[in-house]
């Protein structure tokens, strides 16, 4: 799976949760999930669960805490799927 494939799945997963639709349209690896996309912090865990299902992986709580940007998420998933 390419990094582009992972990026696309991450963005699609974030889509329903992003309150800032303008930022979502211009989303890139450096986009901040909370600050730019205005995703409710309580929903982050739901995004993580959906990504776990989508990629059939398990993301540790420590790793979740380290995620700030879309790029962080893509790299984390890429590392987990090997």
């Amino acid at each position, binding site marked *: 799976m390419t990094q582009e494939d992972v990026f696309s799945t991450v963005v699609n997963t974030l889509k329903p*949760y992003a*309150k800032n639709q303008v930022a979502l349209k211009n989303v890139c690896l450096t986009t901040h999930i909370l600050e730019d996309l205005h*995703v409710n912090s309580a929903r982050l*865990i*739901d995004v993580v669960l959906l990504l776990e299902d989508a990629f059939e992986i398990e993301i540790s709580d420590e790793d979740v805490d380290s995620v700030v940007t879309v790029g962080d998420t893509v790299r984390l998933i890429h590392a987990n799927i090997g």
Partner: protein
Amino acid sequence: MSRRVVVTGLGVVAPTGNTVTDVELALRKGRSGLRRMDQLREHGFACQVAGVPQGVDELAAARFREDDLLAMNSNHRYAALAALDAWTDAGLVVPELGDDRVDWDSGAIVGTGIGGMDTIAEKVVPAVNGKRVRRLGGALVEQCMASGVSARVGGLLGLGNQVSSNSSACATGSEALVMGFERVRSGRATRMLCGGSEGGSHYTWAGFDSMRVLARGFNERPHKASRPLSASARGFVPGAGAGILMLEELEQALKRDAHIYAELAGGFLNSGGHRGGGSMTAPNAEAIRRCIRGALADSRVEPEEVDLVNGHLSGTRADVSEVRAWSDALGRGPDQFPILTATKSMIGHALGAAGGIESVASVLMLDRGFVHPCTNCEDLNPDLDPFGDSIIRETRNDVDLRVVAKAGFGFGDVNCCIVFKSCDPQNLILQGEF
């Protein structure tokens, strides 16, 4: 500081319709919103009839953002739809997404009786028992916590005054109105969205069915199942929905040129203390009488001024004692008794939402000049024969309503009574009284 409080907006999601217009039409026609529910049959309920709002998910999908919807169970959806309708009906504008302003003068008290039981039963319990706690996600707590409904409303509208949920079983919705009324009257808020909400779930109703307090014997005739005041009443019909009223300080309402449906003249809350015949599930009759008298005194309304009683009346054995309590409290025997109706005859008993929905009905009758029927009491309970002429069986359009008393009584031996008065804005300005 004591201010007058008026109703300037209505929002309702009910088994008979999801707009004020549809609900009013159903009330006028005496149309039932009760249906036989396959789910109740499949789960072995003795009562397989319920009153559940229809088409709500489609309405919610058109109104709310996707990520909000993911965290909104039926209770949240009913409350949010009714609250937004009450807000816009009052002539106020729902904030755009991204509007970061807080309205410090407006608040919400939206109660719930049993709340997110469906979420607990369908999601929390299976996941926890299956050792899948990690998979529960981030949207469960807000759907299970009692204050979730008011918090949801507050968030959608940017409310910065009191935002909380009360709970007093079947008196919840009415109690919220009295609480919000007191807040506006005291000057601590300019306007409050108040009422109740209750999700529709067989998990919520199962305990009542087991108690044998739900209507039995009418599964084949759902429209006949809710029978307040009837000799053949066999318990109440469970229901769901939300009813929310905008309570606003009079001067502000006049300044905004808002439509004033009615004045909320006063109300009273009390409990029978599980004494004098009262218990967790039965009312202390003296407490009910005191509650009614307290509401009248708070409203400065004389008992003989009450034109219409929209009772708690749920189709149980308590109906007879309730009518007697009204008669005693008002000091008006059968010959002088005000006219009497029961909204539950058409929508069933929406538990924590009942007081809100039925207050919407009460205010509509006052504002529009009609009285909806108490359906299904063609075989009046013989103990109530002396009051037979007071009970409205067919819609009346010829009644000059000035004062409507609405009551809600709940498990826990808790009581609430509200007094609504009609108003003529012209008189308000000219005379300062109505």
